[in-house]
């Protein structure tokens, strides 16, 4: 492994992150500060998620990495190659065979199993940050459970557009206590956070925060009685596999207005096409 410790991070850093992870699981949705290390890639490319993955990964684990649902995009390919090199672990693109799945901005379509761990890359962990720029203030707001301002933000959407216009990084309340940013997943994925079979860990490298949702935890998307939370729906189906249930990306195919909708989750789409063919 070319002079690196297993999975790149040194053991003391892993222990520090591991202790923080146990606290994060014990206080679902609370952001635990940790001593984030510099990783051999820029902030914003998933350094937080990578540090968490490095701290939990074992030699026998099978790793999957997705970026916006796809296994074959630059970010996913790079991180997968990184862990193949510094940890020598087996990697896969099949959701069902992975123990650890690191993800940027999606939750796989296939239901996760109890022994799987999903690691999210998080750019800005603080859901209140765009409302209150001071870390000291947001910490106090979390301590006092002072979340009214978040409802006001959603209400402003309704006042302006007639509906809640937030479509990704849609705020959730975890176990009736902490308001949490689920990372920039589409709100389509929010229901998958609720009572999930799998443990979900969130890491923000630049902000040096990590948090967690244990399995079987109540996760509610914030809404109003007269404007209940809704997920995206499409009139189209996937042009490749025909799915009507999955999250679709719109792809421009030419410069004459041609377009198609395809599944964002490549493994889900390929599996379906394999079965359908």
């Amino acid at each position, binding site marked *: 492994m070319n002079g690196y*410790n*297993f999975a790149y991070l040194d*053991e*003391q850093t*892993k*222990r*520090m992150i*591991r*202790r*923080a*992870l*146990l*606290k*994060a*699981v*014990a*206080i*679902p949705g*609370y952001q*635990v*500060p940790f001593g984030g290390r510099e990783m051999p890639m820029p902030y914003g490319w998933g350094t937080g998620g990578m540090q968490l993955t490095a*701290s*939990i*990964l*074992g*030699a026998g684990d099978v790793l999957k990495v997705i970026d916006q649902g796809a296994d074959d995009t630059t970010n996913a390919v790079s991180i997968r190659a990184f862990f193949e090199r510094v940890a020598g672990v087996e990697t896969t693109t099949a959701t069902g065979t992975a123990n650890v799945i690191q993800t940027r901005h999606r939750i796989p379509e296939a239901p996760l199993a109890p022994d799987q761990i999903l690691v999210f890359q998080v750019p800005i962990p603080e859901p209140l940050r765009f409302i209150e720029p001071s870390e000291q203030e947001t*910490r*106090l707001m*979390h*301590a*006092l459970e002072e979340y009214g301002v978040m409802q006001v933000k959603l209400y402003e959407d309704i006042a302006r557009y007639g509906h809640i216009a937030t479509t990704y990084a849609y705020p959730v309340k975890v*176990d009736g*206590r*902490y308001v949490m940013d689920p990372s920039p997943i589409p709100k389509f994925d929010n229901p998958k956070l609720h*009572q999930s079979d799998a*443990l979900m860990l969130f890491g923000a490298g630049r902000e040096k925060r990590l948090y967690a*949702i*244990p*399995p*079987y*935890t*109540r996760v509610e998307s914030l809404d109003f009685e007269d404007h209940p939370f809704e997920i995206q729906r499409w009139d189209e189906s996937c042009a490749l596999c025909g799915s009507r249930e999955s999250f679709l990306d719109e792809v421009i195919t030419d410069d004459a207005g041609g377009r198609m909708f395809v599944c964002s989750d490549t493994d889900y789409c390929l599996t379906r096409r394999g079965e359908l063919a």
Partner: protein
Amino acid sequence: MPWPTLNDPVHDSQRLFRQLLAAMSEPGTRYTLDAPQPPDGEIGPALWGTLLTLCDLDTRVWLAPEWDTAALREALALHTGSRVTECAEEADFALVTPDTMGKGPDFSLGSDEYPDRSTTLLVVLDDLEGAEEWRLSGPGIADCRVLGLGAAARPLMARLIANQNHFPRGLDTILTCGARLAAIPRSTRIEEGA
């Protein structure tokens, strides 16, 4: 005789940590740890494995008087480098018995802003399969889970039930007996009886 440590520190601590993470994620579920066994009469392998996995020179450990032996102090210093503290409130980890909790040392619950800055209890129990049943629910538990403990665990459980009133401040607990352990994080709601 020097205490045993992990044969393969990198991979053994990773394996033990994943069991601790699973235990904390599914409160009340029992795990058996394959960890080195300290000499007879000292703490069990589950507790020793937990200390070896989580402690280092950044952590402070508080020891209950009945388990505070020169051998344990020496082993902790040699294998983990962690400091033993006499001040309960300073402790990151506290090695306790249910009786200790009845006497009530003031372990740190963390603050409202930083509830993670709290003590994690590592409890030595005589058995982890007792007849007195406790009903656990909350995050990590699909419906409810029943954990049977011995009558001796009663003062500890009374303290953990009171612990819930402070949420998000609070103590997180790892119960150990020999090679087995189970966890009760502060988010778990505990009721007596099945």
